[in-house]
């Protein structure tokens, strides 16, 4: 593989790498005939990001040495990011960037030709790997909104940096509303502030939605480097969910789109199905796929005219205890079962009174095609971190029950429940 980026595109590439670095720790480089694909996924498999740079993006592009199969490799995000660390410097001094990959040397070579004849060469170690695929299809999402990135960037600004989740929905008069998500209403008296931002229909280039739809996704990066937030379980109350996390995966894409002056499209569906954020122009496209909460937010948008899509009494959802009918609470064995069964629906049944009646389809229709998942660290068993129970994993269609029985602590949480009631 050999590709040469020149001029302003060097900074665009750098910005894309910065956006990807907000999501995952490993970067998958896949040179294809249709372009160079850079992909990453977060450790809990609830966020996936991918940029595809068409051959036209490059001054020269060769996916593979003739006669050889294209190489896929994965590289530590930190390593690749170090090449593009200072965007200001990239813009000021770098004239061209050449990325080449040769199986022989087992090094990814990135060469930057800078002002004054200076040349920087980075020889980065990489690992061969299988292709990283997330199965999603923006076309299958019934709802779509599209706006200049600047508009969405400004809309997200008022939200506190520490905010974990945000609900995006459509309210009366087809106004698009962003609202900070409260995951535990028993705590809501302690929370000082709820932020809500609403945008009129005219701000959007495209708005294919229905009033009343809403999805909640994580506004923040899914890193497990922070200690978990321990919230004591209350009888009849919902399970504590995600930990508070810094930075923002969707903001990473937002700032990329803003700097490239592109429009951002958000494709979404029912709560629980992934939300897909896309940007594109003539030479590149980017997709960020984020998992969404699997039950609708009972405080969703606080709109009088909100029509529940399903007839269930939403407000009861939190107070009804649910049986955990999972075949096994062990995430690992479930994932393995999913893969071997070809991704068919999970063998569990939801009791009545649940937010979604009937069998819930897995949010991801097809099994993952990456082979190394069994070797990778289990996304939800990082020691000390409670798994993201409410967010469905994008790839395995595993639907972890959002509500847990207050009597039975999940074995996955066992290490946290030692000292707690």
């Amino acid at each position, binding site marked *: 593989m050999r590709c040469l980026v020149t001029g302003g595109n060097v900074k665009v590439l750098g910005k894309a790498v910065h956006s990807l670095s907000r999501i995952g720790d490993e970067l998958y480089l896949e040179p294809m005939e249709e372009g160079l694909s850079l992909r990453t996924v977060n450790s809990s498999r609830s966020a996936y990001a991918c940029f595809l740079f068409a051959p036209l993006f490059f001054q020269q592009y060769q996916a593979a040495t003739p006669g050889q199969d294209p190489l896929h490799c994965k590289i*530590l995000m*930190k*390593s690749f990011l*170090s090449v593009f*660390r*200072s965007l200001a*410097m990239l813009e000021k*001094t770098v004239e061209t960037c050449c990325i080449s990959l040769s199986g022989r040397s087992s*090094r*990814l070579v990135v060469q930057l030709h800078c002002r*004054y*004849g*200076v*040349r*920087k*060469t*980075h*020889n*980065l*170690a990489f690992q061969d790997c299988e292709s990283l695929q997330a199965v999603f299809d923006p076309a299958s999402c019934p709802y779509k909104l599209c706006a200049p990135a600047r508009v969405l960037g400004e809309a997200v600004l008022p939200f506190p940096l520490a905010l974990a989740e945000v609900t995006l929905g459509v309210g009366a008069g087809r106004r698009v509303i962003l609202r900070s998500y409260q995951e535990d209403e028993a705590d809501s008296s302690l929370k000082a502030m709820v932020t809500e931002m609403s945008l009129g229909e005219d701000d959007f280039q495209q708005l294919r939605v229905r009033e009343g739809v809403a999805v909640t996704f994580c506004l923040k990066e899914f890193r497990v480097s922070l200690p978990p937030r321990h919230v004591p379980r209350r009888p009849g109350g919902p399970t504590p969910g995600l930990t508070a996390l810094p930075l923002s995966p969707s903001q990473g894409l937002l700032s990329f789109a803003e700097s490239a002056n592109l429009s951002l499209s958000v494709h979404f569906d029912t709560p629980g199905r992934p939300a897909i954020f896309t940007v594109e122009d003539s030479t590149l496209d980017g997709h960020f796929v984020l998992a969404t909460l699997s039950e609708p937010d009972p405080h969703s948008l606080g709109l009088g005219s909100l029509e529940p899509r399903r007839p269930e009494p939403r407000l009861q959802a939190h107070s009804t205890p649910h049986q955990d009918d999972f075949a096994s609470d062990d995430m690992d064995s479930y994932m393995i079962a999913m893969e071997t069964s070809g991704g068919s629906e999970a063998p569990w049944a939801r009791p009545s009174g649940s937010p979604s009646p009937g069998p819930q389809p897995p949010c991801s229709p097809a099994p993952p095609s990456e082979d190394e998942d069994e070797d990778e660290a289990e996304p939800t068993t990082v020691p000390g971190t409670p798994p993201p129970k409410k967010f469905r994993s994008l790839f395995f269609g595993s639907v972890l029950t959002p509500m847990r029985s207050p009597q039975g602590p999940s074995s996955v949480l066992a290490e946290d429940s030692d000292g707690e009631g």
Partner: protein
Amino acid sequence: MPLLTQRIQDESVQYSLVASLDNVRNLSTILKAIHFREHATCFATKNGIRVTVENAKCVQANAFIQAGIFQEFIVQEESITFRINLTVLLDCLSIFGSSPTPGTLTALRMCYQGYGHPLMLFLEEGGVVTVCKINTQEPEDTLDFDFCSTNVINKIILQSEGLREAFSELDMTSEVLQITMSPDKPYFRLSTFGNAGSSHLDYPKDSDLMETFLCNQTQVNRYKISLLKPSTKALVLSCKVSIRTDNRGFLSLQYMIKNEDGQICFVEYYCCPDEEVCESEY
């Protein structure tokens, strides 16, 4: 500075060293460029002051402030040497704040009575006077790197602008910084070998940044990156840097720094090599 001179005249003491500056930053900025250890040795003669900081018996930084920089500079003895806490000295010199407020200057009068006495600093800004007394210590011998021009094999003078970003972005996961100087390609190369892999920064001999390129022999030397990283401060302040290696692989970095009044001061770093290498590693 009528306020400060009045105070001095009232006391009937003989100072071994008296140095006055209208703008204390002409001294404090240079000292910050070598502030990578707590303590420094000050050495004063009628030609000026030299402040030396050392680390690990491998690296030495010297800041030279010539007599001409000062508005008043009196040294009564042949030479004066003392050891002092550089952190404290810099805190005192910056006592009125370190960021320059346009239009205001802080004046300095530095007085030293001699062996065993503290260093006295009188700082004045806008009519407010601060007096600092810093205890001095027994001077320790400073390393003599025995670096003389006759043994210099390779010499390069570069505009600092070209090296600044390179130094601030050095891969600190690498233990060493490898410097290659050669009459042939790659001419001048800085290399690191970190967790991500290796990085090489090449400067061609005909680059616009290159003011002087006098390389006679290919030399590849490695220096502990942790010892050289502090020199970034001096690099950032400087407009030019000279890089020289001698027959032992010892490195001399000399930085030409222009102060706020356009006067030239020098900071130099000496570093001994980590080990001898015959060929670079890729």
